């Protein structure tokens, strides 16, 4: 618009030509096109956001199942039948089955942490997250997490968890079905139990639960990435730890 005015002011002839051509100087009506573009732009952004949310809801599914002893958003207590020693701290481990750093963490500290939990010296809670599926675009964390909690239905969470880290697949690539099934078999799930487990995983039985744990970890518990370890709510730095004794100490495990 400003340009048209300038032209009119500077050249009388130009103005006459434009006047003869009628409003809009022979081109499309700028206001109408602008209004159309603004409407289309707003619709596109709103539709994009709505589509994203619908997509996400569909992925999360409708199953409201949670593993034994845990509510939505809460970690899963491992070795729940172990009697805790007095003053045993709550140790929260936040990990994603797809995360290579978690694989290294498990290789180094997984065994000793489990020993502490088995001896009742810590109350161990696993917060199994699935944010890496979103980051990498691969379908790995969520099916693996379902595999873990479907195994928990059969009392085999820990064995499945250990098998999934020992035989960790590549980050950023869809988890092959055979690999997932292999972890279940290593965890001792066979025959009819394996069929039940497979159906449980295929249904995404625990997807909503895992997604809720993921959201709680990042939005309420201040988790920034995985692996994260907390003892009685305080983040623990494992960088200088090399022996099981060091580990027990930094975790504040009871003796």
């Amino acid at each position, binding site marked *: 618009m400003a340009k048209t005015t300038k032209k009119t002011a500077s050249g009388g002839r130009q103005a006459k030509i434009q006047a003869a051509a009628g409003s809009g100087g022979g081109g499309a009506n700028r206001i109408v*096109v602008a209004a159309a573009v603004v409407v289309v732009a707003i619709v596109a952004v709103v539709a994009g*956001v709505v589509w994203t949310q619908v997509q996400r809801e569909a992925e999360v599914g409708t199953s409201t199942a949670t593993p034994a002893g845990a509510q939505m958003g809460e970690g899963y207590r491992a070795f729940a039948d172990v009697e805790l020693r007095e003053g045993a701290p709550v140790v929260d481990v936040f990990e994603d089955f797809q995360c290579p750093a978690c694989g290294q963490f498990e290789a180094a500290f997984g065994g000793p942490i489990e020993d502490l939990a088995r001896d009742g010296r810590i109350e161990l809670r696993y917060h199994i997250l699935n944010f890496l599926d979103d980051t990498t675009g691969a379908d790995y964390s969520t099916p693996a997490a379902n595999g873990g909690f479907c195994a928990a239905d059969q009392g085999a969470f820990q064995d499945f968890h250990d098998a999934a880290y020992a035989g960790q697949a590549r980050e950023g690539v869809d988890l092959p079905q055979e690999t997932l099934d292999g972890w279940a078999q290593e965890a001792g799930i066979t025959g009819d139990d394996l069929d039940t487990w497979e159906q449980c995983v295929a249904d995404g039985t625990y997807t909503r639960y895992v997604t809720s744990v993921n959201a709680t970890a990042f939005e309420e518990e201040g988790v920034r990435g995985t692996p994260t370890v907390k003892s009685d709510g305080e983040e623990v730095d494992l960088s200088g730890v090399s022996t099981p004794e060091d580990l027990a100490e930094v975790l504040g495990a009871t003796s």
Partner: protein
Amino acid sequence: MTTDVETERAVTAWYRSPRVLDVVGLLARLFLGGVLLWAGLAKVGKPLTSERAVQAYEIMPLGLAGWVGLALPFVEIVLGVLLVLGLFTRPVAVVSTLLMVAFVVGIAQAWARGLTIDCGCFGGGGQIGENETKYPQEIARDASFAAAGVWLWWRPRSLAALDRVLFRD
């Protein structure tokens, strides 16, 4: 035979010619538009990452930052498409420039406050290790995008723009 003055005039005319300036405009449009399209498309379908990326700046309340994260990819795509088409170049360039300035301010405040985040400019984002931050590079990059926007703000006329076809200007 040409005098020195005339030669000089011819040289000045080379880069001041509307044709050349129009080509610069086209390049600026394709550069900024392409970058916005790329940045937007890289984030589509990754709602969780997009939300976290904005939340990691710790400027807005978590809920609001989440919605900004969800909408931003589509805003970037719309701006990118309009720039590539050359439709309403000046207003779109103004909005895009302000967006880039906002990104620069966001990154700079994260840096100043000692946050350790990835800008999440082209997907990714969120908290990273202390020695993994790339604040100067990220700011320089966004500033170069802003420069293209400022050019189009100052001189929106460019080659092969829908503005010229539709509005004859």
